[in-house]
């Protein structure tokens, strides 16, 4: 068989192909960077947590209900920190999910163009408020107000910061849920209105189910945001590891423990120092589980239109 004849005008353009390869490579590098950083974080957390778990059994870590790594009588039960995290997150969600969803429905289905274009930027401004400000807001304003209703409330409690955290994540839910509701094709709305549905019936029975995957994604993001929130709870919840789900008691969350220990003067390599990596790893696992859960829920609810 003879070599096929390739005319010079149709042969491969070397310069163009090199350029294309180069661009492809730089794009790959940018994408790999995020993956690299994530792996590096996981690596540091795991490698620093290993010495901790050589000293403390995983069983003790997960079942002991007292967390005092820096006291003379040491206990290494993560449960008080987990309960603090879950309780504050739960309170935040009770506030943020209804408020955020209702805001999204209003903005997407009821508000006129002008109202929407005014409210949305203001709402998104709320995201820009530093969380330390929210923390003092919880401690100085919200807790005293709650004490008027419930006088036995301690100065440091989970209820105040939980509520403030909820207010903080309202814009995340509202903005993302509104985006996904507005992405529902107009044909769907027209279909509902043509049946004689009111605005409310259309938004609740047609638009919300159609946008549910985006709305659930917004909730998951909000949960992750609440679980990872540090300053509000560090300032206003009391930093007392306390195994309780009672919102009127003071407590510490995983993040507020990490920040309080990391700011103190602990010897490098000591058990107290190592404990923050174990706590950090727990937080990472929790967030990861939430994300997997979110992904699964989204797949289950995914509606095509």
């Amino acid at each position, binding site marked *: 068989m003879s070599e096929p004849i390739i005319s010079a005008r149709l042969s491969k353009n070397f310069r163009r192909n090199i350029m294309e390869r180069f661009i492809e490579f730089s794009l790959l590098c940018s994408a790999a960077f995020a993956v690299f950083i994530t792996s590096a974080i996981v690596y540091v957390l795991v490698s620093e947590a290993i010495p901790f778990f050589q000293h403390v059994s995983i069983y003790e870590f997960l079942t002991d209900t007292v967390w005092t790594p820096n006291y003379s009588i040491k206990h290494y039960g993560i449960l008080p920190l987990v309960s603090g995290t879950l309780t504050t997150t739960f309170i935040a969600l009770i506030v943020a999910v209804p408020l955020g969803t209702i805001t999204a429905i209003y903005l997407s289905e009821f508000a006129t*163009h002008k109202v929407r274009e005014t409210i949305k930027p203001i709402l998104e401004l709320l995201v820009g408020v530093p969380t330390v400000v929210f923390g003092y807001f919880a401690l100085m304003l919200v807790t005293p107000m709650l004490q008027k209703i419930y006088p036995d409330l301690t100065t440091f409690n989970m209820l105040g910061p939980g509520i403030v955290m909820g207010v903080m994540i309202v814009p995340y839910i509202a903005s993302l849920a509104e985006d996904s509701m507005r992405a529902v094709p107009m044909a769907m709305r*027209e279909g*509902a209105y043509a049946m004689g*549905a009111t605005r409310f019936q259309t938004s609740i029975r047609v638009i919300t189910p*159609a946008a549910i995957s985006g709305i659930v994604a917004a909730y998951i993001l909000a949960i992750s945001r609440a679980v990872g929130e540090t300053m509000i709870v560090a300032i206003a919840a009391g930093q007392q590891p306390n195994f309780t789900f009672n919102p009127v008691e003071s407590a510490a969350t995983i993040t507020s423990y990490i920040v309080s220990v990391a700011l103190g003067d602990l010897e490098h390599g000591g058990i107290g120092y190592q404990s923050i990596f174990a706590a950090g790893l727990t937080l990472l696992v929790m967030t990861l589980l939430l994300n997997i859960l979110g992904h699964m829920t989204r797949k289950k609810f995914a509606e095509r239109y």
Partner: protein
Amino acid sequence: MVTEKNKHNEIVKAESKDLNFFYADGTQALKKINLPVYENKITALIGPSGCGKSTFLRSFNRMHDLYPGNKYEGEIILYPDNTNILDKKVDPIEVRMRISMVFQKPNPFPKSIFENVAYGLRVRGESNKRMLDDKVEDALKGASLWNEVKDRLHDLAFNLSGGQQQRLCIARALATEPEIMLFDEPTSALDPIATVNIEELMSELKKKLSILIVTHNMQQAARISDYTAYMYLGELVEHDDTNKIFTNPSKKETEDYITGKFG
């Protein structure tokens, strides 16, 4: 009770009188349209893209109200009420309860087949399970979809084929027993077999109600409609018996469009 009849002694179900329509940007999409819709007849609207036929159709169930700034002038009288449904004092939701619509692209809701058909009934406050079951079955039978879906009523509507989805949308519109059904190019997104199904269905439906249909397909208008209106640039050029329009139109423009010399 007021009933108006035409020369063939047919009852007028609704009619537009000097209907003008303006979009929010000020463009006038309809110019003094006078057109009757007869009871138990199919009236087809034909004309080139942008001639205002969809705009006209959508005026009948006040769809334009959904977008701010749109303006109607003139009247659409619905009989036997003898009421101008464009009047500010008329509730558009009440109008839509009696005049339903099927769209160009099938737009089932993200719900089960059953819930799609039950939607209009639920919106009207019907919650009796037996009643809903019966009416959904009737509507699906009316849209000749029952046999295909009776074993999977609780499947998601999106799992149906395009033609089935469109028949589902017809069933959905049918469930609330409308007096007039508006069809906005209902078969333009469907294959030829699904199109024939829908056309046969429309001929069946007209026994119970009045139909106004917009179509791009002139053969379709000729096949199924009793009356045809030709529109051009927002004006009604000619309106007559379908046979007359397609065999012996009185206007030159209509003839040019129908014979393909124009449009």
